[in-house]
């Protein structure tokens, strides 16, 4: 799956974009956050407060219980601060 990171999530994981094979047990956006948090220290730091990290599947904002089944891309970022 294609994974994108923005703002301080990007800085903490150390990459803007990558591709990863997800284990079958990772079925939802929230489960994907938990799984990513276990990769290494940088990912753990990025996802230390999982609840505030926003997820977009194929460029649509979703809740943590959203299924990854039909998504080809997941993006992770902090709460937006535009405007």
């Amino acid at each position, binding site marked *: 799956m294609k994974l994108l990171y*923005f*703002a301080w999530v990007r800085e903490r994981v150390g990459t803007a974009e990558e591709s990863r094979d997800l284990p079958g047990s990772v079925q939802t956006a929230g489960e994907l956050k938990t799984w990513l948090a276990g990769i290494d220290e940088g990912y753990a730091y990025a996802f230390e407060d999982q609840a505030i990290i926003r997820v*977009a599947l194929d*460029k649509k904002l979703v809740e943590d219980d959203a299924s990854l089944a039909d998504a080809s891309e997941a993006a992770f970022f*902090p709460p*937006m*601060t*535009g*405007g």
Partner: protein
Amino acid sequence: MRIAVQLEPFDVGAEIDALHARNPAIGAVVSFTGYCRDEGGALAALELEHFPGMAEQALAEIAEEANDRWPLQGATVIHRHGKLAPGDPIVLVVTASAHRRAAFDAADFLMDYLKTRAPFWKKEHPSDGTSEARWVNAKAADDEDAGRWS
């Protein structure tokens, strides 16, 4: 609906004129322009990161929602990204309607929603030259403002 995400500055007067376009059904046009502040001299520059593709899509969805809620004759939303200096314009919202209430409310709504739903992130570069640049924290007040419309 005109939606743009761009590096370049925008021309507020030209955008208002283009939206009104002498359409004689329009009685009211409201514009909101957001500018980079210098925070009392503490800020040297503002860096705006965005999620290309999703940013345009999110702004278009928010504009559609405003169009569904109010009888608009049109709306324009432009958001810049990249590095901006104090005094630079960041964001522009323009709404047109037959009557002033709809134009005011729709512009207000667009700004509230855009702040919490459009994928842009601000990083502040301090002017003291020694402290590190830091990401702006989302404000609880912005969520409350967005909540006014639900």
